[in-house]
């Protein structure tokens, strides 16, 4: 037996150099210009051009003076770069009687977005945690009502909310708008947090209970540290959503509290005088800059958060 086995091994070993030389060997070569790559990269390039071209036109236009714009060559880079339109958009453009530019709207938007985001996320995360982990009586009913709330069109609720805010004495103030944003963010955020917390291992929650931790201890010491990714997602949703809001800003505030989006509309759509395209473009980019920055900064945080959260306990 032994002899036969060793013989056959030797013969196999002898034959191997020929076999290796004949056929393909090692790593399979990849062609750069395969049909697959052409389609993927081609599509990506077309799509990014589609999105980036308007931005390019906006930036170029905002850096030109009016005489140069009147020439009509919108794709050409500015011959003479001027930051005058940016300054004007930020500090001098007129809306109604005020001529202090977008800066007023910017600070209004900040004063609306920051508290709305913080309050709505704080409340919704506790909501989601309670719904996912503490199965209290009526939890399902409560959750159903909340979800239905997400599907009711905003327009239906505007007038009732105006009355409610008026009765509370906060109609037309920033406080009122913050309350509205917080409430309207609740369904989707609660759903988001509930699903995330429900996805965390249930045994972790049980272990914490055996360890004697109560509702808030578990929330702050166990759940929160594991939830960075979902908080970043919620923050992105809320900051961009509230910053970009127009309808509530117009309806629930007075002109001196108009958020940036409403003010931008008023600048761009003003019917008097010459249309200053360069100022309009600069104003638009300024308004859109905040969500852009949020995406860039927290996008990276988001990926890191997912990686950290993926480590199994």
């Amino acid at each position, binding site marked *: 037996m032994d002899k036969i086995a060793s013989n056959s091994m030797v013969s196999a070993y002898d034959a191997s150099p020929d076999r290796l030389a004949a056929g393909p060997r090692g790593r399979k070569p990849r062609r750069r210009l395969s049909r697959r790559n052409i389609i993927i990269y081609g599509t990506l390039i077309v799509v990014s051009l589609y999105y980036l071209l308007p931005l390019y036109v906006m930036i170029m236009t905002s850096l030109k003076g009016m005489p140069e714009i009147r020439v009509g060559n919108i794709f050409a880079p500015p011959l003479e770069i001027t930051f005058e339109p940016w300054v004007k958009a930020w500090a001098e453009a007129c809306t109604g009687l005020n001529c202090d530019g977008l800066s007023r709207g910017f600070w209004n938007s900040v004063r609306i977005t920051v508290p709305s985001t913080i309050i709505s996320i704080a409340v919704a995360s506790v909501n989601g945690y309670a719904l996912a982990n503490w199965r209290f009586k009526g939890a399902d009913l409560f959750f159903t009502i909340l979800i239905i709330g997400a599907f009711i069109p905003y327009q239906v609720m505007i007038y009732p909310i105006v009355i409610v805010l008026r009765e509370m004495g906060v109609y037309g103030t920033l406080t009122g708008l913050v309350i509205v944003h917080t409430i309207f963010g609740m369904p989707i955020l609660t759903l988001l947090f509930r699903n995330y917390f429900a996805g965390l*291992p249930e*045994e*972790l929650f*049980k*272990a*914490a*209970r*055996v*360890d*004697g*931790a109560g509702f808030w*201890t578990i929330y702050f*010491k*166990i759940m929160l*540290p*594991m939830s960075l990714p979902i908080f970043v997602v919620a923050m992105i949703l809320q900051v961009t959503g509230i910053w970009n809001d127009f309808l509530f800003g117009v309806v629930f505030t007075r002109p001196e509290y108009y958020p940036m989006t409403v003010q931008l509309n008023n600048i761009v759509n003003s019917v008097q005088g010459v249309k200053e395209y360069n100022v309009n473009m600069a104003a638009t980019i300024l308004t859109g800059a905040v969500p852009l920055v949020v995406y860039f900064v927290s996008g990276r945080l988001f990926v890191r958060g997912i990686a950290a959260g993926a*480590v*199994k*306990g």
Partner: protein
Amino acid sequence: MTSVSVRDLSLNFGAVTVLDKLNLDIDHGEFLVLLGSSGCGKSTLLNCIAGLLDVSEGQIYIKDRNVTWEEPKDRGIGMVFQSYALYPQMTVEKNLSFGLQVAKIPQAEIDKRVKRASEILQIQPLLKRKPSELSGGQRQRVAIGRALVRDVDVFLFDEPLSNLDAKLRSELRVEIKRLHQSLKNTMIYVTHDQIEALTLADRIAVMKSGVIQQLADPMTIYNAPENLFVAGFIGSPSMNFFRGEVEAKEGRSFVRVGGVAFDVTSYPTRTRLQPGQKVVLGLRPEHVKVDEARDGDAVHQAVVDIEEPMGADNLLWLSLAGQSMSVRIAGQRRYPPGSTVHLSFDMAVASIFDASSENRL
């Protein structure tokens, strides 16, 4: 002295009854294993004892104190979970001390207990690490440590070894047994693994659909299963079952299965076998003798279908009385397929069940 006592415990989820009037007394220092396939209610029962599930009816006593409505932390229990359930953002040391800090125990005492637990479990070098930097076995050791530092009377294990690979599982099994021998705590251990149950337990409670089928020491469970379910559940490969009819002839009793009559005169029956009674005869693979018949033994001929050599043992699959059966023999005895063997049975260790009630006769 009872350590844990479950009295008339029922649990319903809506219309579904998971546990129905379950009673269980566990002695102080006893190692009790709840054994059953998934969905039998064994983990549910453990969660009820831990206080993680609210019971619908009945009472739970731990150390003669009614804890039915107590919070988990006030019951004097420590619990170890299948998925370890370590807090991922805390170091091992933090994981161990978290419960003590919540309970506002003085730092000196916490340090002492963490030190003791980490010495017992040999995890001192790991104290500064995060759970993600530990292997599965180390994680489960830390999880056991978390129960240990609580200085409690009752340990609850919820399938603690199921997530580990086979080698680690057998290592940790021995460690848990050693731990129990040195600590002498009451331990309640849920598993679906019969080897774990048989090796660890002082007593095993075999469960099926929320009912304890048999509560006895491992050897009784193995050798004298109370009903057909327990008999089929314990043992791998499973017990061979022959459905037949009782016959009496010349003062001897037989179970006739097709053309084969098994002589069961030496079977220690609890009630007399009635001729014509439909029964199930159960024979463990390792209780069948192959070509080892002594004088006077009834011998049956069978042909080997398949041979499964497993090293220490050799498993033969044979046809007898028109059905397939398995026989375990020593590993060095080989029977190639097709060979004829002579089987004899020791009916003293066989099991006979009533065919309709499925209870042991």
